[in-house]
């Protein structure tokens, strides 16, 4: 079953490798992965969708929380969360089907981001299953090309973030640094 993991990570070289390495070492296939800066530019938020055996899900979260660069790893699979994805679709259309394509796009609340004699480029967001449907519908009109962003998720519960305070070295203690 697919697991949605949300991580708050220090924006440091190698941080991504440590997290993906943890999954690849166990031969888990990553379905999607997104990463971008948070309000604090030193931190990144990651959303990973990964196929993990249900019995091992907790273990994966625990191992991620052990990584020095990971501030918080939480499993959003069954907790209240909103999960969204974006897709860009280029669909080739012939003259006759153009109105129908536009109509379908409207039903899925997709926006036209480019239009040419060849066809359209459409942008849609929604939960990943809805995008699957949208893609299926567009396919029925002809040749398409798609790029999906991968899921981004936000928890609807405030998860308390426990950050570790600084530890003073012997020198620090001797100097009375506070």
């Amino acid at each position, binding site marked *: 079953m697919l697991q949605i993991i949300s991580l708050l*990570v*220090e924006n440091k*070289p*190698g941080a991504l*490798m*440590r997290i993906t*390495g943890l999954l690849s*070492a166990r031969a888990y296939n990553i379905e999607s992965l997104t990463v971008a800066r948070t309000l604090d530019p030193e931190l990144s938020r990651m959303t990973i969708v990964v196929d993990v055996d249900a019995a091992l899900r*907790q*273990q994966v979260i*625990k*191992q991620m*929380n*052990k*990584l*020095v*660069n*990971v*501030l*918080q790893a939480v499993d959003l699979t069954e907790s209240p969360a909103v999960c969204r994805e974006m897709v860009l679709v280029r669909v080739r259309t012939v003259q006759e089907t153009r109105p129908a394509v536009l109509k379908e796009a409207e039903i899925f609340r997709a926006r036209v981001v480019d239009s040419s004699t060849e066809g359209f480029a459409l942008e849609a967001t929604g939960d990943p299953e809805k995008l699957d449907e949208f893609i299926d519908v567009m396919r029925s009109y002809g040749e398409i090309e798609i790029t999906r962003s991968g899921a981004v998720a936000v928890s609807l519960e405030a998860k308390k973030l*426990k*950050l*570790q*305070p*600084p*530890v*003073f*070295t*012997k*020198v*620090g203690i001797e*100097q009375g*640094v506070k």
Partner: protein
Amino acid sequence: MSSLMNGAKMLLECLAREGVDCFFGYPGGVTLPFYDAVYDHHIRHVLVRHEENACFAAEGYARATGKVGVCCATSGPGATNLVTGLVDAMMDSIPIVALTGQVSSKLIGSDAFQEADTFGITRSCTKHNYLVKRLEDLPQVVHEAFYIAASGRPGPVLVDIPKDVFQAQGHYAPVTSIHLPGYKVFTEGHTGQIRRAAQLMWEAERPFVYAGGGIIAADASAELRELVEILDAPAVNTLMGLGGLPANHPNFVSMPGMHGSYAANMGMTHCDVLIALGVRFDDRVTGRLAAFAPHAKVIHVDIDPAEIGKNRAADVPIVGDVKRVLTRLNKVLAETRPERKERVAAARQAWWAKIRAWKAEHPLAPVTSDSEIKPQHLMTEINRLSGGQAIVCSDVGQHQMWAAQFIQFNAPRLWINSGGLGSMGFGLPSAIGAQFARPDKLVFALVGDGGFQMSIPELATIAGYGLPVKIVVMNNGYLGMVRQWQELFYNNRLSAVELDCFPDAEKLAAAYGFKGRTIDKPWELSSALEEAVREPGPYLLNVKVSPFENVYPMVPAGGAINEMVLAPPQPVAVPK
């Protein structure tokens, strides 16, 4: 602010401030600036003969003292040679700081001479690793590395340093604090859970203490002893935990697991409360998990939250430093001692009667022979000379299991072996590290003829530094443990396990300038070992033992630990 210095000197300054008195390494091209600074620095650099052994020696040092062991290698092949040692330290939770040179920053990614992606390669075999791109970052990184290696669940940390960072000039600014907001160290343990654990322990009729390497790492031997005595519970130490409870303590049963004693495994199987302290329910201990301690409620104390519930669900999980948790737990136990002591005492008496009966039924009895040296005989002789006080650095295989069964350790940090990874070639170099750490101690490198031949180059290190390590080769002419499995599970088809050529030990040792001897008669054994121990310098004793002896009891892979094979199934056919 200190005077202007280069990165190499700054690194040594950091090591000095961390209290490093010696480290193990091998120089190379990109570490030239570092070794130039090492030349006249007071910290002792020990030149080994292979980088893998630098890491094993650092492990020996760390395991013998509890301090962080330090090793050093050059870029490319030097760094990749460290990998086995790093994984070994990772598996056994040994604090190591590994320093590697890297090609100059500008050359990184250009396939430069002796370039390897050390940072990427060592990601999965370290607790954390760093690539230092700027000299300004070096002190902070090095002090962080030591902090991470030693705190929480200890482990190896690697710092990769490009040549130009060694050469750059700067001032050492003392590091006053370390801020790692995501690095969670759990030490205290939950008060409510500690109370629940105490209650469960007093309710137990058949409590059993399963103590592991965490006891050694946390320096919690005294607390473990107190717990065992308060409860009057039988206790086992795992392979990693030997010496945690002194072997001569009346409550000590022995080692459990695949080659554990009958009493230890039966005790684990029949207990009603299993008190697991600093252990990870390793497959070599538990056997088939579904059948492991089937009647027991489990109290599991570990500093690593990921270990709790990983293999066996805990009824009372306690995340914390086992020393601190036990200190508090022992207090609670003392305060909550039940009023009706007789009930507890009666139950305990019945439980001890069972344990003693199991011990008597199938004791770990030393095997001896009049005509040949039995491996078990060798171990009991080493035990006699050690008196529970010598450091024994073991390699991996049959001799390791016999040593764990028959050599007693009456204190922690005397038994040094590669437990989790099972790295052959570990015994000799780890003895080098242990002897540097504890010059006052009698140190045995107890190795098989296979593992010894993996680490022969280190005889030069031993000779060069005049280390009085006693190298005892248990020589059965085979890769014994692999052969044992081929005999038992592969129709005795002995494939690639015979080591038919072994150097003349006396000549080999003489070639390095110290004494050596080969023996094969049981009546020579004690005097030969005594001679080795009396010798002020190193000694190589090659002990030819009966070649086809196998380790028993044995739990076949996938079996439950109470389904032990106690003796060879039938006389084993000796192949022509």
